[in-house]
């Protein structure tokens, strides 16, 4: 007996990889363009950098929404669970590590690495994001291992 024809097939790993590559390309183009035009002095450079980043983020969000609507409910549940538990745990672990290292009394690392305050600020933000993503990835894999 053949089952009734159902709704369209949910997105799989291939679509996810395709979306990530597409978003990475958009991000790279916006990053390069933003760094070129952002060198202009005054508020124009700042405004152009802001505009490129905003457009890239908007494209990434649009791609995410399209992909989110195409996956099935178990896949969504895995991502929600992973974002909350994995992202939170990763952020907590990263905060402990980074704050412990940053608040040591043996001198600021900025002099050693030649980084500006802005570099360190951006680096700290990206470091936390990387810890969150690492926790997210581990939690996502754990959810599927548990539910397979």
């Amino acid at each position, binding site marked *: *007996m*053949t*089952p*009734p*024809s*159902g*709704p*369209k*097939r*949910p997105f*799989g790993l291939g679509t996810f990889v395709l979306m990530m590559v597409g978003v990475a390309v958009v991000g790279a183009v916006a990053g390069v363009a933003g760094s070129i035009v952002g060198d202009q002095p005054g508020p124009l450079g700042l405004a152009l950098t802001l505009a490129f980043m905003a457009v890239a983020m908007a494209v990434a969000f649009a791609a995410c929404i399209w992909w989110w609507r195409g996956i*099935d*409910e*178990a*896949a969504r*549940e895995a991502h929600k669970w992973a974002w909350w538990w994995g992202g939170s745990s990763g952020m907590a672990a990263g905060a402990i590590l980074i704050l412990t290292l940053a608040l040591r009394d043996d001198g600021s690392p900025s002099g050693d690495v030649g980084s500006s305050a802005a570099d360190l600020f951006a680096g700290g933000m990206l470091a936390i994001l990387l810890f969150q993503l690492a926790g997210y990835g581990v939690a996502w894999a754990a959810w*599927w291992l*548990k*539910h*397979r």
Partner: protein
Amino acid sequence: MNNRLKVLRAERDWSQADLAHALGVSRQTVNALETGRYDPSLPLAFKIARVFGQPIESIFTED
């Protein structure tokens, strides 16, 4: 929550992929449902009931 998905699917000689196609979910989701490791949302439970032509309470039961 317990369910009779595997039995109902076997009675119809459907594969997990067949059922997944009918429900519009992935095969992994069907597997997680059948093994009782994932409880479906209410809309998906209704869809399952419709595909098998049975009421929800005859497919899903409490522990």
